[in-house]
């Protein structure tokens, strides 16, 4: 608000122009990193959208990401179905799966939600690794080729792939940002902060939460499309608990409540991964410690956001015998008020 509209638009335009210019000015390697950050970014975005709007942490977003990837792989390598259909079907199936699982998980809150999504995510992983006649088991499916768009092969030109992905990436961000600002987003935040009040006011609380869950899955599944096309392969690792935990880690590092945080966190994690790889074998240890420090000492980023969304949960359960009443022990209590 303090920032004038004109300069805001200018910042957005200049950023966009720079982003579009990347393939011409940067090395292939850098373009590749951007492509990775974008598809994993969409995965993280879906997690952060749920965390920010519903106040829940999901450990199954990678399932939607992987399902669309798997459908592309199967339809393209097995049945040679031409381009626009496999990704559309892939996204469709992922959304359908979200509609199904949403029925199961949407009643759960807080840690119940986390555990439930963890188990459902593992179910998808078990299917991917054991249903070998379809998914080729642990070896996964290779030979997926990126499509030709406007006569340019995005398989051969990384720059073209980048622009193709950038378009959808920006569209996703715009979609989520618009969703957040819309009445729908406001209602969601109302539910997050006080579900009982919203229910009393006559809002269809469960339906709204359910729809948010499906929207998040939709975003993750778009990420999965680009993942499959860019890497040219898919295997159970993409739907594993490790991928889910890494997504959570990205979200936490960047700040789980904002869209910008999701992308930033993904970028940090993917760059750290590359930097640390040559130096040390204690990648996991460093990640664990980093994760711990962020959760405990970064109130503005990750923890602050969680605290805020958690307040809603805590105040709801306060009366029903939860130990969440001990807010005075909470180190973030002072910071955020």
């Amino acid at each position, binding site marked *: *608000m*303090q*920032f004038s509209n004109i*300069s*805001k638009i200018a*910042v957005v335009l*200049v*950023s966009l122009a*720079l982003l579009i210019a*990347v393939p011409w*000015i*940067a*090395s*292939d*390697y*850098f373009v*590749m*990193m951007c492509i*990775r950050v974008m598809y994993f970014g969409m995965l993280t975005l879906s997690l952060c959208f749920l965390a920010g709007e519903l106040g829940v942490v999901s450990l199954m977003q990678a399932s939607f990401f992987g399902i669309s990837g798997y459908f592309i792989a199967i339809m393209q390598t097995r049945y040679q179905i031409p381009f626009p259909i496999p990704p559309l079907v892939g996204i469709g199936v992922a959304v359908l799966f979200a509609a199904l699982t949403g029925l199961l998980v949407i009643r759960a809150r807080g840690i119940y939600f986390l555990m439930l999504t963890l188990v459902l995510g593992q179910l998808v992983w*078990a299917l991917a*690794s*054991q249903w*070998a*006649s379809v998914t*080729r*088991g*642990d*070896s*996964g499916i*290779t*030979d997926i080729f990126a499509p030709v768009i406007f006569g340019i092969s995005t398989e051969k030109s990384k720059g073209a792939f980048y622009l193709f992905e950038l378009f959808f990436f920006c569209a996703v961000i715009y979609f989520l940002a618009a969703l957040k600002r819309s009445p729908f987003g406001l209602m969601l935040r109302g539910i997050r902060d006080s579900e009982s009040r919203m229910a009393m006011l006559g809002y269809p609380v469960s339906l709204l939460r359910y729809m948010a869950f499906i929207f998040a899955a939709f975003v993750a599944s778009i990420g999965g499309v680009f*993942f499959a096309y860019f*890497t*040219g*392969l898919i*295997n159970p*690792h*993409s739907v594993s608990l*490790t991928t889910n935990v890494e997504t959570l880690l990205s979200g936490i590092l960047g700040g789980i409540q904002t869209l*910008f945080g999701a992308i*930033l966190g993904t970028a940090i994690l993917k760059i750290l*991964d*590359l930097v640390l*790889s*040559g130096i040390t*074998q*204690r*990648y*996991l240890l460093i990640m664990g410690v980093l994760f711990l420090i962020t959760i405990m000492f970064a109130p503005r980023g990750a923890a602050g956001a969680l605290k805020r969304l958690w307040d809603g949960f805590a105040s709801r359960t306060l009366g029903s015998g939860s130990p969440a009443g001990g807010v005075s022990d909470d180190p973030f209590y002072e910071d955020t008020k």
Partner: protein
Amino acid sequence: MKRKSWIIAITVILFFIGAIAGNAMALDEIRIGTIGPTTGWATIFGQGCLDGIKLALGEYNNEFNGIPIKVFSEDTKADVEVMRTKLDSLKNRDKVHLIIGPSLGHEGMAAVDWGARNPEVPMLIGYSAPEDITMRKATNSVIRPGWTGAQVIFNFGQYSAKDLGYKKVIIVGQDYSYPWDQAAGFIRGFLENGGEKVERIWHPVEAVDFSSIMAKLIAMSKEYDAVLNNSGGAQVVAFFKQWKQFGLDKVYPQILGQANVPIVSMLSELGDSAMGVYSSLHYYDGNPSGANKKFRESFKKKYGTYPDVIAVQGYDAVHVAFKAMKAINGQVDDSKKFIAALRQVKMSADESPRGPFYFDKFANPVQNIYIKKVVKKEGRLMNEAVKTYTEVSQFGPYADMADKYMAAPATTRDYPPGDKASYFMEIEKHFGKDYVEKLKKNNGWVD
């Protein structure tokens, strides 16, 4: 709002500094990239290979004709998406002349896929064993100084049927492509040489409780002669443990193992329960050759433990690379020449701990396959060769029908069929009547 915009602006600026920076390129050095899992559960595979690579480079003082060799080691975390990124890093950021790795099966498949899209970077595959890396998906730049799953086990099937005299065998294995390949190779060797039936039991890759399978094996013991354990790593330990717990060692003769069941690192963990286990591989630790002794002793001196076949792959890969570099006078910049030279390398028994080998036209070694048995020697468990089959290619007995072999349906968890009648119908369909007639006439393969 204002602060947020600033943060975004700064990020964008930093992003561009990153975009334009880089691309520093040094001359006068040979850059070798290594790739494999060196963190997480699969560490032993990547690290083993890397240890072998470093040992071999040490023998050359890390230089070639006075040109220093620089090694860039990248970790895959056993994730193929990460691996592809690291391969791109090695190629674009480090500008390596050669890549050695990876070590896991699914990584190998992804690596050859990458290799086909990046044909200018020579790659020596490490421990990965899927046959398609050097068969149906073979590509010019990818050379495997290693092995394929089926290659090392064809003759074991033959040996089990002919020398051990088994008629019906049960294979218990992890449910993914590598054990399927192993089972397929075994079935071919076994059924074509007088075996009658092979039953396959697949369990989840990560299963640790085998009690139900043990129960099943007990129930099946009336009909079957022997059990072949077709797992790897932790599952082998759990399987042997429960095998003994359920007293199956009294029901069946000594267990058979697929290629990497009784490898060195496993033996110390399996203990005496591994005594007498038969298996087959292209390397055995008890090999008395000078090259193997030197390799084992210098490895032990450097790392404190005796090496595995995993380390042999890294070790041999470096020696293959050096032989090729000698042939082209160190012109590694010319990747076409380098690749061609790599494919022509022939290793003698004095040069490789595993024995002599050379590459077939798909760049997989033609090498000795040893039928090994675990024995106790100098107070330590060790594999001794009980029979050696020389110059075995990845096509095994089908070397002169390579096209037919590759055209036959891909191995799955239940292909090829495990009973003699339907198996022979299949080979008649794919390898022709003549082949079946020849088998019948010779009573199996001719050694």
